[in-house]
């Protein structure tokens, strides 16, 4: 049986770095509807922050562009987020996802963004096309609610 969508949100914001904090706070508020644990919220915040930062830093290379954050909750307690940019795209996605790989060591980029998302979420998919943009899709299944003591 296909999981049913409980709630869905679509946010569009310019690629200014102040919106990194906005995006992760929005993700934390949105997933709160499923009563996640503290650790689950932390993981989601961090993963969304990484993807949005990637769009700001790499997608648009600090030029101004539009970032979309699409989030979905389904009744099987899965949180899904998709971060889209229409920036420069990634020529070699596999290489970009390798731990410690970075195109920007001068600015102390650690090259750990995708690795962190992979570790903190259950799934990560990166679809990118040079000159057209990047979509980063991640999901996390939240733990079952603790039984109410009665």
């Amino acid at each position, binding site marked *: 049986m296909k999981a049913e969508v409980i709630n869905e949100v679509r946010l569009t914001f310019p690629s200014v*770095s*102040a919106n*990194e*904090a906005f995006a*992760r706070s929005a993700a934390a508020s949105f997933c709160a509807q499923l009563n996640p644990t503290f*650790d689950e919220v*932390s*993981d989601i*915040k*961090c993963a969304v*922050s*990484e993807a949005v*930062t990637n769009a*700001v*830093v790499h997608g648009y290379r600090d030029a101004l562009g539009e970032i979309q954050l699409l989030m979905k909750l389904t009744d099987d307690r899965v949180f899904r987020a998709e971060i889209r940019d229409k920036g420069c795209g990634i020529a070699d996605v596999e290489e970009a996802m390798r*731990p*410690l790989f970075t195109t920007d060591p001068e*600015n*102390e*980029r*650690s*090259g*750990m*963004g995708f*690795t*962190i998302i992979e*570790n*903190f979420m259950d799934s990560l998919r990166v679809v990118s096309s040079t000159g057209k943009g990047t979509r980063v899709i991640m999901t996390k299944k939240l733990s079952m609610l603790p039984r109410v003591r009665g």
Partner: protein
Amino acid sequence: MLEYEKSLKCITSGRSLTIYLEGDIDHHNARTVRSKIDTKLYIQRPDELVLDLSRVNFMDSSGLGLILGRYTRSVELGILFKVANPSPQIRRILDLAGTERLIKIENIPRTEKRAQGGEPA
């Protein structure tokens, strides 16, 4: 007041400098925090630098870059570099990057002096 307008909280004990990072360490404010720490390092030239993370609410890979960068800077200046009191979440990020092979990570119990916080730099 905006986060990046705040000055760093520091405690100097002998030749050891402890800097208390606060709030969110992300790409947005890492650059400002970085230049503040480096300025302090160049002026003070301590023997030891401790970055205390106990007051950091959030950190992502930009914070990791900041920490690794300060490690590199400390090595260049001959300063012993340590990280103190990361939250479990931050600890996971540090561990993912294998930080412990390079950097000493300590959990220092809060003494009264620490709990009161340092003087602004």
